[in-house]
């Protein structure tokens, strides 16, 4: 792996280069007391000097006493916001005196349109795995989502290696971090001490190398590489949660009547926060809406959640009416069925569901409780 370093100021150059090369750059921004992802105009938009404190059902941002750019962990949003938008028009049909015109007749094939150029700036290792998991869902089956494909194939990814663990995350258990190993064009590690503020950058692809040419870099030294390694080890030690994945799929499959589900269902509000913040959840619904005159009918795809009562509705009623059934469905899907469906766990250990659950349900605790008394 080719490693280089560049000084803090060159971070701005990297963003400018991407913009000049036609990429829309999305990255972290501090807004409404949370670090979210949105379009960056330039490096000043980044959450410089901010950090966060996370725990069950708790999220606070806090000012640091330095100018670290990435010294926080994941917020309520994930990159699926861009690759798999919460609301997306799929097609429009028009009605006129000549009849109905269906877009399929015009042979519109979205995937033949040029791919969109999105740059994702500051993608953590767990998020890289989450993107790969959604790639498997949307691009790896018998039918492919052409909307996802168009955004994904043109995406440029600048990963960031975490230099501290979050309050709720557990990437080590899920083998998804903290260091980014692949799936990126460039991977940065921020090093900030009394003397210097710089980044070690690892090149992942030819395009990454090409973009980096516009940034003033020098070769990384042995010491730089060792510093990165230390940061990774220090981060791992800070991880405070764990999830034992050994034989977890079978344990969950056999535990459909485990008493733990009732206990957790009594707490769960079925609010669907966890599914919205989860970077791998992909359930969606479809709505057909017309304008008032009935001249145009749009099909809109929207995020949906297995926690809603009518998610499983078939003529006359829902299949999963109880909160127990719905919580069980979500967790069993995430940590068991997903393995049979897509070849890996659906969970990347980012901790968002724990942080953003209003009643603080912790998926690692649930897994522990079920494993303890499994049949």
């Amino acid at each position, binding site marked *: 792996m080719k490693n280089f370093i560049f000084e803090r100021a060159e971070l701005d150059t990297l963003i400018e280069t991407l913009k000049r090369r036609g990429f829309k750059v999305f990255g972290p921004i501090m807004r409404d007391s949370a670090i979210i992802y949105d379009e960056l105009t330039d490096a000043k938009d980044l959450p410089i000097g901010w950090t966060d404190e996370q725990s069950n059902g708790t999220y606070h941002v806090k000012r640091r006493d330095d100018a670290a750019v990435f010294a926080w962990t994941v917020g309520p949003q994930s990159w699926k916001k861009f690759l798999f938008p919460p609301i997306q028009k*799929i*097609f429009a*049909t028009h*009605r006129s005196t000549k009849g*109905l015109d*269906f*877009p*399929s*007749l015009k042979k519109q*094939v979205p*995937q033949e349109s040029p791919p969109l150029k999105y740059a994702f700036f500051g993608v953590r290792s767990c998020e890289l*795995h989450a*993107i*790969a*998991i959604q*790639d*498997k869902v949307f*691009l*790896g*089956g*018998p*039918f*492919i*989502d*052409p*909307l996802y*494909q168009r955004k*994904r*194939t043109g995406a440029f990814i600048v990963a960031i290696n975490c230099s501290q663990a979050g309050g709720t995350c557990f990437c080590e258990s899920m*083998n*998804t971090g903290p260091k980014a*190993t692949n*799936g990126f064009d460039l991977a940065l590690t921020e090093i900030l001490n009394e003397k210097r503020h710089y980044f070690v950058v690892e090149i992942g692809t030819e395009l990454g190398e090409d973009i980096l040419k516009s940034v003033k870099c020098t070769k990384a030294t042995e010491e730089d590489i060792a510093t990165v390694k230390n940061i990774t080890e220090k981060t791992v030690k800070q991880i405070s949660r764990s999830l034992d994945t050994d034989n977890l799929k079978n344990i969950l499959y056999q535990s*459909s009547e485990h008493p733990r589900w009732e206990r957790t269902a009594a707490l769960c509000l079925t609010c669907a926060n966890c599914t919205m913040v989860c970077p791998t959840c*992909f*359930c*969606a*619904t*479809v709505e*057909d809406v*017309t304008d008032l005159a*009935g001249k145009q009918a749009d099909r809109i795809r929207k995020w*949906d959640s297995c926690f809603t009562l009518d*998610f*499983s509705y*078939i*003529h006359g009623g829902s*299949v999963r*009416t*109880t909160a*127990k*059934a719905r919580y069980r*469905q979500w967790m069993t*899907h995430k940590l*068991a*069925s997903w393995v049979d*469906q*897509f*070849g*890996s766990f659906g969970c990347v250990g980012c901790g968002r569901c724990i942080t953003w659950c209003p009643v603080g349900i912790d998926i690692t605790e649930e897994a522990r409780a079920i494993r303890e008394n499994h049949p």
Partner: protein
Amino acid sequence: MATAPDLQSLKVDYKRNPMLPWPFQIRRVKHETEDTFTVELQPSGDLEEFTFQPGQFNMVYVYGVGEIPISISGDPANPRTLVHTTRAVGSVTKAMDKMHRGDILGIRGPYGTPWPIDHANGQDVVFVAGGIGLAPLRPALYEVVAQRERYGKVVLLYGTRTPSDVLFRQELENWRARFDLEIYVTVDRAMSGWRGNVGVVTNLISRAPFDPRNTMAFVCGPEVMMRFTTMELHKRGVDNEHIFVSMERNMKCAIGLCGHCQFGSVFVCKDGPVFRYSQIKDMLVKWEI
């Protein structure tokens, strides 16, 4: 870590985008019973034929109203006409019920796994249909009848609520008139004047003329009926490897991307709707799966 597909080499070769419905024109809307109707369609544009396998379904779109999954109920040997039979129970089907010759429906499909009819070569074939469940089985019946010599005994057991709910009466009569098909119809209750069987469809199984050691059973109907039918088939000696059922769940995309139709770890839209009973028997008895 999940192995993501190789993005650089991803080339999708669609003749038609799976998210866009294709327009079909209604040739006929036929009312079968009080709440069930059949719509016959022909493709528009440069599509001349619609081929499918028995057991598959389409997503059927009514402009501005919505889209729902409906099993294909026509003859696969007649690809110029697409036939759907459905009950008028929701906003989309009620809208369809009022449509006329010349109106347009959007079709995406065919989707799903078919009835594995060629697995039944050389065996007896038993179809057990409950209510509207006869519609997804009808294409399989057509196909078996068209190649009758490949099979042993062919039996249809069909149960529905009352005589006025019996579907495809004329076809049932035609089939009954053949000497190489055994057609048994039963209803849950009837007015005096009905000369057929009265009783639940599972009652027909114990005396149906097939050899349980050499039989494939294709079962379609309400889930409760499929569970009890399987119990009776077991009593006759048919095992789970030789029983196939058609499952139903909420569907939005029909292409395995929206997550709605999951039943345990399988997606009913792409791993089903036809399943070998042994594959799903454990999930059928779990509540609220």
